[in-house]
C-alpha cells in the first residue's frame, strides 16, 4: 500500500497512455489509490466526511479565486467592493454567498470529522501522524477563516481582528512587538487588511498540501472502521471505486442540500448583521462575537478572568485557548486503551457524549455576554474540557473493561441483525 513500487501493477492498454505511464506512473498511482485502494466494507456515513471536506476545500478555493478578482483590499474600498460583487458581478451574489456559507459548512463538516475520530479512536496507533496532520489542518483552517472574515471590512471584521490580534499582546516581553508586527502598525488598519488578504489567499493552498500528506498518511495503514478491528484479508474490504466513491458521492449530494438552502434562501443568516456596517474604529459594537465555529474556543478564552499564581488573567486565557487545541496533539498518548472504537468501550462512550455536550455548551456560552451565570458556567465547562483529556481519558482507558471485540470485520458484519 505504500506510495512506491506500484507501477508494475497497472498497465494502460492505450499505447500513448502506456508510454506516458512508463515515464510518469500517474495512472498507476491513481488506479492504486483511488480505484483499487482496499476500503473496509463496514464504514458508516461518518466516514464520508473526509470526502465532504475535500469538496468544501475545493469549493472555497474556486469561489475564493473568483472573489479575489473583484475584491479591493483597501480600508476605504473593501466593504463596497464586496457589495459590488453581490450587486454587479455576474453570479456574484451566489459566488459570494457560497464562499461565506461554505466556510460554515466546512467547519460543520470538520467538527463532525473530528468527533468521528474522537469516538472511533481514529487517533490511535498506527494513525497518530494522520491525526496530528488533521490537527494542523484544523489550526490552518481557523487562521484562514479568521483572516477571511476580516476582508469584507465590516464592523465585526474590524473588531474581531482587533480583539483576536490583541490576544498576542498577552505574551510576556515580546507580546507588544509581536502585536505590532502582526498588524503592521499600532492598530488594525490598511496594512492589516492587506496582509490578511495575502495570507488568506495563500493558506488554503497550504491546507491543500497538508491534506495531501493527510491522505498519504491515511493510505499507509488504510482507513480505520467502526469496529476498530483492522481488516484481515480481502473479504473485509471492497475496492475504493466504485464502492466508496458512490457512497461518498451520495453523502456529498445530501450535504449540498442544506448548503444550497443557506446559499439561496438565507445567505446572511449564519453571519452577523453588524458586518453590514462598514468598519469604524471609533464605534465599538455592543457585543463582539466571533462566527459560530469559533465560539467554544472564544468561551474558553474569556473564561479565564482571574490570575493564576504569577500568570495574569489575560495570559491565562491565551494559554487555555491555545491549549484547548494543542492538547489534541497529545491525545494518542493520553488515551491508552488498546481498543479503538467507542462502540466497545462502555465507560468511554458515556464520557464521549458528555464531552460533546460540554463542547456545545461552550459554543452556546461563547455567544452570550460575559456576565452573571454565563461566566460561572463557562469556567465549569472549560474545566471539564481539560479534565476530559487530562484526567478522564487517561483514567478511563486504564480501568475500563472493554466489550469483547469481533475477530474480524466480516464476523462483525454477519453478527449484525439484518
Amino acid at each position, binding site marked *: 500500500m505504500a506510495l512506491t513500487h506500484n507501477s508494475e501493477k497497472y498497465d494502460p492498454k492505450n499505447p500513448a497512455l502506456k508510454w506516458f505511464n512508463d515515464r510518469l506512473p500517474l495512472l498507476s498511482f491513481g488506479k492504486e489509490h483511488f480505484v483499487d485502494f482496499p476500503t473496509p*466494507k*463496514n464504514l458508516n456515513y461518518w466516514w464520508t466526511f473526509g470526502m465532504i471536506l475535500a469538496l468544501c476545500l475545493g469549493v472555497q478555493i474556486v469561489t475564493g479565486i473568483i472573489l479575489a478578482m473583484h475584491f479591493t483590499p483597501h480600508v476605504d474600498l473593501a466593504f*463596497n467592493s464586496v*457589495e459590488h460583487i*453581490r*450587486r454587479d458581478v455576474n453570479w456574484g*451574489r*451566489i459566488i459570494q*454567498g457560497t464562499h461565506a456559507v461554505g466556510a460554515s459548512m466546512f467547519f*460543520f463538516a470538520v*467538527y463532525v470529522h473530528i468527533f468521528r475520530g474522537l469516538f472511533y479512536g481514529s487517533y490511535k496507533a498506527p494513525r497518530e501522524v494522520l491525526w496530528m496532520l488533521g490537527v494542523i489542518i484544523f489550526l490552518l483552517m481557523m487562521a484562514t477563516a479568521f483572516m477571511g472574515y476580516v476582508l469584507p471590512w465590516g464592523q465585526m471584521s474590524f473588531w474581531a481582528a482587533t480583539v483576536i490580534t490583541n490576544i498576542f499582546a498577552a505574551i510576556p516581553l515580546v507580546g507588544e512587538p509581536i502585536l505590532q508586527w502582526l498588524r503592521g502598525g499600532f492598530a488594525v488598519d490598511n496594512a492589516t487588511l492587506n496582509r490578511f488578504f495575502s495570507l488568506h489567499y495563500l493558506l488554503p493552498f497550504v491546507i491543500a498540501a497538508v491534506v495531501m500528506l493527510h491522505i498519504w498518511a491515511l493510505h499507509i495503514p488504510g482507513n480505520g472502521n467502526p469496529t476498530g478491528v483492522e481488516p484481515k484479508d480481502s473479504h473485509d474490504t*471492497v475496492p475504493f471505486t*466504485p*464502492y466508496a466513491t*458512490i*457512497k461518498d*458521492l*451520495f453523502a456529498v*449530494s*445530501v450535504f*449540498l*442540500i442544506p448548503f*444550497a*438552502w443557506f*446559499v*439561496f*434562501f*438565507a*445567505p*446572511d*443568516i*449564519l*453571519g*452577523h*448583521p*453588524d458586518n*453590514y*456596517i462598514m468598519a469604524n474604529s471609533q464605534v465599538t*459594537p*455592543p*457585543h463582539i*462575537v466571533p*462566527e*459560530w*465555529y469559533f*465560539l467554544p474556543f472564544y468561551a474558553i478564552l474569556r473564561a479565564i478572568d482571574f490570575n493564576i499564581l504569577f500568570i495574569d488573567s489575560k495570559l491565562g486565557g491565551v494559554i487555555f485557548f491555545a491549549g484547548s487545541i494543542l492538547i489534541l496533539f497529545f491525545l494518542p498518548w493520553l488515551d491508552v486503551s488498546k481498543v479503538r472504537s467507542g462502540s466497545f468501550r462502555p465507560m468511554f462512550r458515556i464520557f464521549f*457524549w458528555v464531552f*460533546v*455536550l460540554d463542547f*456545545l*455548551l461552550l*459554543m*452556546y456560552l*461563547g*455567544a*452570550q455576554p460575559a456576565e452573571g451565570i454565563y461566566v460561572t458556567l463557562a469556567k465549569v465547562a472549560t474545566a471539564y474540557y481539560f479534565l476530559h483529556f487530562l484526567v478522564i481519558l487517561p483514567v478511563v482507558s486504564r480501568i475500563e473493561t472493554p466489550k469483547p471485540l469481533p475477530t474480524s470485520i*466480516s464476523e462483525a*458484519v*454477519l453478527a449484525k441483525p439484518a
Partner: protein
Amino acid sequence: MIKAKTILMAIALAGLFSAPANASGTAGVEPKFSDWTFGGLFGTYDEHQLQRGFQVFREVCAACHSANLISFRNLSEEGGLNYSESQVKALAAEYTIADPASLDGERSGIPADRWPAPFATEQDARDANNGALPPDFSVLAKARTVQRPGLGWIMNYFIAYQEGGPDYVYNLMTNYAEAPHDVEIPAGQYYNAFFGGGIAMAPPLADGLVTYDDASVPMTTEQYAKDVSAFMMWMAEPHLIARKELGFKVLIILSAFAVLMYLTKRKLWSNVKH
C-alpha cells in the same frame, strides 16, 4: 442506542445553530413581525409596494439619508421596481449631478448615475442633524435585525428568515411616542419605544404626508413604514427573487441527484454484506 444517538445529534445540530442567536435587536417594546410579500420561500417583491416605498424614500428619507450604492438604472431592473427605461431616464434627468468633467461642473442625471447624496460631506450631514449621522440606506436593511422571543430563533433557520431588517425599520417607524415620565430624553433626541430611548432622528413619517397615486392604498404612517421598509430591503438585496428562483432549481436538481446516487449505491452494495 440509535434513538439516543439521534436525539443527541439533534441537540448537537440545534446547538451548532444557536450561535448567531445573539443578533442585534433592541430591548424596548415587543417587535411586531409583518407578513412581507418577499418573506418565506416563495415570497417575491411586490413592485407596486416597492414603487410606493421609493416614493416615501424620495420624498421624505432622502432629505437626510444617502443611498450611495444605488444607481438610477437599478430602478428598472427586473425583479425590483420594474420601472421602464424611459421612466428612469426621465427621473434621472430631474436631478443635477456634480461632475467636474462637464462644462460648468454640473449636468443633469442619466440612468448610470448613482443616487445623489443629500449632503456633500459627513460633516455637513452631522451639522444638519444635531451632530448625528443619518446612516446610508444601501445595505441598512441587512445591518439591523429583530430578535424573536425565546427559542424563536431556531425557527429562523427553517423558514430562512431574512426579513429582520424590514421588521426593524417598520417597528422603528411606528414606535415614536411621548417619553414616559421617568425617561429623560436629551435635547435634539426623540423618544422611540422600540429603539429603547432617544434617537436623533425626528419622527419622519406622519399620516397623509405622502400622496400615493393609488387611492386604494391607505396613506397612514403604518402603510408608509411598511412600504419604505420593503423598499429598503430591495435596496439591500436587489437580486433576491432571481436568487430564490435559481435556488429552487438547484434544490430540485440536487435532490434528484441524491436520490439517483442513493439508488445506485444501494444496487452496487446489494451483493456486499456490510
